[in-house]
């Protein structure tokens, strides 16, 4: 009889005297162990419904009349209904009545509304995008919704009863103590929420997930396992990454703006420096005229064999060099000219090279003309274009210390004319190539470093482009492309 009572599916508890517990069925024993105190009053809380006037303390004294039913919940548990039966005074108990609590079995699911709710709820869980997985206390899979099938690729039949950690937890996560962390959280809090980790699908794909884990109890209130909800956060992570990238891009854009601002400031400074240099250059030019001019005068008056003659020549040479630098600086800082004439590039090239004849002959440089006949005239500032060619030819000739070939080519394209000036000289060393168009960059002993800067500025003002190719020891070719139409050049 006792054995039957002990193993009963319903909870049975006996109390005597003022409510001291004397016996409980297995099913309730676990629950009651954790309860404070050892009396019925500290364990059972009367349910307001069904027995409005009854309190647990009324169990102390007086006992309710025999046969009366009351409803309680066990302290800290889900509501369970008990029937309190008070037995009359008994010899063995020394006169106190014995209270027997028998759990009333749950009502059969004849509640249509409740059943309907359950169906809707089940469907919602089954069809949810999130994966709902329930595990028993041993960690075997007992529930597997459609979301889980879609997320991990296994059907419910395939995984039922299998250990979830073997199926879903990837090795690296296992090794990094992922499961230990989760169990620790469960022990500490009784639940896990918003835990981010990786799980693996059937196809080996790593799925970033966010876990929500709660304890599961069966109908009798016994811990039956865990319910795990997996939310696929790959989209969220992707968006977060995109957001981070956007933030990075914005940061970079911001930095660029700041850098541009600083560049603008630097440019303003440069233009102020430009104005200044122009003023200084003009101021310097006049005394140079008189120094060099009088040196020339004296040169005529002093006999050629006098030592002073040689010194005056040096003065004259140096003054000419200074004047050349002043001219180049003024050319560089000069505002753009807008008046354009139709110019014949072949003719300008010929007339420009004339001023180098003496130098090419001296250096043994051969000139190879490859000019296209009937080249269309293009709108340009003749004086400036001549300056460009002059600077390029000067560089080409000076690059050929021991002679070589200067090739001058013209060619008409669809909407531009290409002029190329090639030498067979030393070439531009790799490390200098990025700098050659910068003002004041020079490799020559006596250059101002403005030649190519001026040339590229002029070409740019004509809406043209200038490029070069160079091979060390084999020579350099400069290509200038100028637009054919006036609109493009203006």
């Amino acid at each position, binding site marked *: 009889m006792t054995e039957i009572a002990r193993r009963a599916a319903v909870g049975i508890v006996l109390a005597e005297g003022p409510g001291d517990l004397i016996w409980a069925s297995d099913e309730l024993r676990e629950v009651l162990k954790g309860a404070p105190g050892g009396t019925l009053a500290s364990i059972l809380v009367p349910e307001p419904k069904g027995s409005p006037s009854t309190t647990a303390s009324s169990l102390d004294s007086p006992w309710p009349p025999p046969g009366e039913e009351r409803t309680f919940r066990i302290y800290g548990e889900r509501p369970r209904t008990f029937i309190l039966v008070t037995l009359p005074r008994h010899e063995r108990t020394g006169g106190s009545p014995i209270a027997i609590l028998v759990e009333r079995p749950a009502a059969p699911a004849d509640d249509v509304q409740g059943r309907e709710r359950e169906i809707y709820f089940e469907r919602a869980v089954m069809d949810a995008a999130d994966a709902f997985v329930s595990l028993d206390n041993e960690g075997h899979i007992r529930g597997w919704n459609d979301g889980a099938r879609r997320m991990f690729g296994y059907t419910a039949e395939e995984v039922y009863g299998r250990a979830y950690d073997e199926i879903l937890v990837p090795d690296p996560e296992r090794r990094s103590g992922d499961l230990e962390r989760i169990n620790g959280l469960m022990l500490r809090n009784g639940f896990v929420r918003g835990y981010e980790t990786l799980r693996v699908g059937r196809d080996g794909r790593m799925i970033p997930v966010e876990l929500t884990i709660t304890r599961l109890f069966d109908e009798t209130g016994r811990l039956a396992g865990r319910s795990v909800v997996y939310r696929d956060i790959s989209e969220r992570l992707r968006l977060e990454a995109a957001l981070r990238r956007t933030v990075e891009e914005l940061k970079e854009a911001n930095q660029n703006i700041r850098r541009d601002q600083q560049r603008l400031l630097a440019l303003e400074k440069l233009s102020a420096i430009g104005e200044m240099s122009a003023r200084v250059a*003009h101021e310097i030019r006049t005394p*140079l*005229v*008189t120094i060099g001019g009088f040196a020339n*005068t004296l040169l005529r008056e002093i006999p050629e064999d006098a030592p002073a003659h040689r010194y005056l020549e040096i003065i*004259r040479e140096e*003054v000419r060099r200074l004047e050349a630098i002043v001219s180049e600086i003024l050319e560089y800082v000069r505002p753009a*000219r807008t008046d354009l004439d139709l110019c014949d590039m072949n003719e300008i090239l010929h007339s420009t090279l004339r001023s180098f004849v003496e130098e090419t002959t001296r250096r043994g440089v051969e000139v190879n003309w490859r000019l296209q006949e009937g080249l269309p005239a293009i709108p340009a500032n003749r004086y400036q274009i001549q300056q460009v060619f002059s600077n390029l030819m000067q560089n080409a000739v000076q690059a050929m210390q021991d002679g070589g070939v200067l090739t001058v080519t013209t060619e008409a394209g669809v909407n531009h004319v290409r002029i190329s000036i090639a030498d067979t000289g030393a070439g531009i060393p790799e490390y200098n190539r990025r700098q050659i168009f910068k003002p004041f960059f020079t490799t020559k002993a006596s250059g101002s470093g403005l030649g190519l800067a001026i040339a590229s500025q002029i070409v740019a003002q004509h809406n043209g482009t200038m490029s070069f190719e160079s091979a060390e020891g084999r020579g350099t070719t400069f290509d200038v492309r100028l637009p054919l139409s006036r609109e493009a050049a203006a």
Partner: protein
Amino acid sequence: MKPTILVVDDERNIRLLYEKELREEGYDVVLAADAREALGIIEKRKMDLVVLDIKMPGMDGIEALGQILAKNSAIPVILNSAYSSYKDSFLSWSADAYVIKSSDLTELKAKIRSLLDARSER
């Protein structure tokens, strides 16, 4: 008879240099330190050619050029400046030549020679 050249420049050393160099070329040289002085000289004496600086205190060379040509449009004027920028100004186009100042006076002397030759041919 030697042609007479009027040199107008506010820089004393330039005036001295041009005076010496142009005399050696065989010209009579008259000097003026500013535009007003130059205009006064032109009213009193016949000049065969004017070498005119542009940037000068008071009246500048471009304005002086207009007044000189108003008095005598036949007189050749060479604008002679340390600046190349005035070349672009259409006001300077009415001058017969524009020579940028240089210690090498070859170009200036050649321009003077050719302008005087052209004049004597007429």
